[in-house]
């Protein structure tokens, strides 16, 4: 999975592309924690390029969200790919996580 940090306006974002699964989860955690540690409590996660996402990856998103909310920020998911949207709906987590920007084309 490719993890590309960028800025969206003044908010830091992580752009994910490829396979977000149990094997990749530790790398995502490291990248996210690096942002949160730089006192950036609101982080965007761009899922447009995610072709496969599993429950371990989902757990990482939930963990990151709890972490950022505990610092007064949030983890915002944006531009969901079809697999990402499906797994959020299967688990009902699309109602609990902050999702903006709708589904990626």
């Amino acid at each position, binding site marked *: 999975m490719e993890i590309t940090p960028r800025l969206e306006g003044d908010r830091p974002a992580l752009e994910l592309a490829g396979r977000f699964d149990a094997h990749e989860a530790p790398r995502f955690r490291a990248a996210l924690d690096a942002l949160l540690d730089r006192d950036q409590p609101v982080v965007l996660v761009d899922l447009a390029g995610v072709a496969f996402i599993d429950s371990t990856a989902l757990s990482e998103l939930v963990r990151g969200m709890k972490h950022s909310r505990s610092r007064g920020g949030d983890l915002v998911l944006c531009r969901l790919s079809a*697999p990402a949207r499906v797994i959020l709906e*299967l*688990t009902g987590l699309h109602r609990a996580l902050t999702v903006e920007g709708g589904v990626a084309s």
Partner: protein
Amino acid sequence: VNPTAPLPGLSAADLLAALRATTVRLHLDGRPRGAWGPEPDGPPAVRAGAGPVLLEAWGEPHEAAVSAAAAVVGALQEHAVTEGRLTRSLVEAHDRLLLLQQLAEVPFDSLEGQEVLDRLVVEVVRLTRAGAAVLVGSARPAVAGADPALRDWLAGLVTGPARAGARFLSGPDRTAVVSEGIGPIEAPVVVGLARSGTEPFGTADGQLVRSIGHTVARTLRLTRLHREAVARVTIERDYEAASELARAVLPPRRLRLSGVELFARSVPARSAGGDFYTTLAVDGTLFFSFGDVAGKGLTAALVMTRVLAAGARAFLDRPDAGPTELLARVDAELYPYLSEIGLFATMALGVHRLGSGVVRMCNAGHSPTLAVHAEGVRAVPPSVPPLGVLPGQRAESEEIRLGPGDLLVVSSDGFVEQEDPAGAMFGYERFMAAVAALHGRSAEDVGDRLYRMLSAHAAGAPMGDDRTLLVLRSHGEVPGPTRSARLELAGDLLSLRSLGPWLTELLAGRPADAAARLELALHEICVNVVDHAYAGAGGPIRVAGLVDDQGVQLWVRDRGRPYTPPPGPPAPPEELQVRGYGLAIVRQLVDELRYERVGDENVWELTAGWRPARPGEEPWSS
């Protein structure tokens, strides 16, 4: 009689005045007991009295008054003697009562009848201070006493025929009292006491030995009842455990596999009888075994789990083997065990290549096993006796062709032998007729109807034995190509990446969303295996799949730790659990998810039918 006050309330002077005598003397039993007045001269003027009493008076006594006085003294004397006797009896009775009470309170460490007698006889000797005592219950006589010769003599006295009442016996320098025939309910308890010397036992001792007999008989009866109650509770627990065991290892199963429906259910009787069944599907082959371990309770249930596991293991080791070989493997494993514990087990087992429309099976002593076609019902007879009867059996394999709607019905004898309240069995003929009438119905419907029919027949009569039923319904040969494939993974997270390409190849030409949907499902199962079953240490994961026109089935097998479901219901999404979404996701992606621990293997089975995508699933095709 008081010398100063010869009669209650009467002084010597009063007495002499009343009798108009100068001197009065009293003799009891010929011995002087009282004298009032000065030493007299000459013979008395009046003598009166009867029995032990003699009253003499000097002077000019009133004869009638002297007679009256003698009568009063006689009455008082008699009263005193009676009072003394009563007091002695009372003391004796009290002693006896105390003795019996102590005897009844003897504590026991054991409930064995013989040990109770042995313990009691020692107490009898101690409490009665007899030289020796003997108690004879249902077992051998219990004898106690310090003097062996006295003991042996006494023991020899009680071997005669029992009779009511007490016998008083004497020998050279020894005496005994023996009471026999005590205990109206129990075997009679005989009690004997003996002592050295010549003093015979008395009537009171006769009563005593009879009372001891009653006490001992009662104690024996109580210990027996207690023993029986304990045994009953033990059996009850045993049966309960057996039923629980049967419920745990025989989960009801409803399955729709490619071209076949399966229904299996076991309702263990209160005293579970050792019925069993297994159904396994691996790599496109359905395996079933069905049988009954002789006997009831925990032993039968424990043997049952072993028989069940042996069948499953034989199949998992060789999923492509025929039924004859599978049964031979089971027999080879179980025969030494079964013959050692002296039990046997019926077993029918079969294999069915999904979509083939053919069941191949072997039957070792099990009935009823019925093949139900539109033309009629045919019994599949056993070709060898039950397992554990003869070593090295080789059963014949029978090939049963099942067309659309045809059934294979295997039941336990608890089904056909269930009685109605009048004691009439459901019976083979009725069972066969009932099954014949159900041809064409779904497996689940057939199963439910047979259970209902049986309940109606029993009409509240107690369940005699386990009721176990397996119904296999064929859709006949499934047309169209059937494709199967296998994949072996190393058991680390990276190895799971090959699931996608493998599935894409297996599912080529099938609905487009299927590969993505099933990859996620398989992936989640495998992550679970890597993380939990193998705890990150790695280990082989074997994946197999079977695809036909009806749907797809996937199996994941590993040799890691058994899966244990998390306690409690899943948390709602609002609570944002960090983990635990995996299996919940899988359940939504497939029609059926089953887990089974078979031997040292975890077997996950995923079934999904081809059907139009539901609205929420459409994005898969994008």
